[in-house]
């Protein structure tokens, strides 16, 4: 027969386990819906005919607003370029919005760019997609 002092400890352990199961059930990666990112973003870069075309895009999972900053630097045969774009954005759930666009003559050699989004949940560095 177990000593009486072990009984409360056992109940406490069982309660902890139950809380853990309730906290993760039905949600991916153990995250609550409030923790899921409100948006995804990317900077699409296309090289065509001696031109680099860049478009920043954001897709909102929930209504979201914030600010973005797009910086593009390019050094090539014809010279060097720097483009800074920034502004506010607002998107409805499911909406895709454009966050700046730029067109520079040149190639991917000597090209660097960053697109950063700031919103209520924090700051997001958007990945660059090449095509």
């Amino acid at each position, binding site marked *: 027969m177990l000593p009486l002092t072990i009984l409360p400890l056992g109940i406490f352990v069982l309660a902890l386990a139950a809380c853990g199961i309730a906290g993760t059930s039905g949600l991916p990666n153990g995250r609550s819906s409030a923790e899921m990112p409100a948006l995804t973003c990317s900077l699409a870069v296309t090289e065509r005919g001696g031109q680099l075309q860049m478009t920043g895009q954001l897709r909102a999972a929930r209504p979201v607003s914030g600010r973005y900053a797009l910086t593009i630097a390019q050094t090539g045969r014809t010279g060097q370029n*720097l483009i800074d*774009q920034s502004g506010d954005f607002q998107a409805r759930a499911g909406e895709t919005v454009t966050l700046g666009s730029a067109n520079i003559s040149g190639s991917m050699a000597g090209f660097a760019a960053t697109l950063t989004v700031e919103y209520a949940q924090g700051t997001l560095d958007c990945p660059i997609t090449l095509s």
Partner: protein
Amino acid sequence: MLRPLLRAAVLAVLAGTAGPAIAENVISLSLTPRNTQEADLLRLGLALYAINRQTRDGAMIDQTGHNNSAGITQGDPGSFALIQQRGRDHFATLEQPGTAGAYAIFQSGKGAVAQVGDGKAGVLIQFGW
């Protein structure tokens, strides 16, 4: 098709523009709209140019030659900025902190320098030698 329209818009704004300025081997012609109608006309012209170059808004730097330098700063996604450089040793910076800006800088020859602090609406054409 778009070139005549752009030319007409520029010429319309040119009608009320001060004569060109010449300094240090660079001749500059600045077109600044005097009223809302001229500003709208200029925006239309630049928008047509942008569509022709497959750019709807944002920033565009178009260079040929060598040793050129260009920088654009924008604070509003609805603005349009263009820097076109032909030749060599040109330098141009264009800032558009406000909303709905439309400005273009065209540089050709060599050694032209332009620094536009508030590119609300206008065109700057420079030739250096």
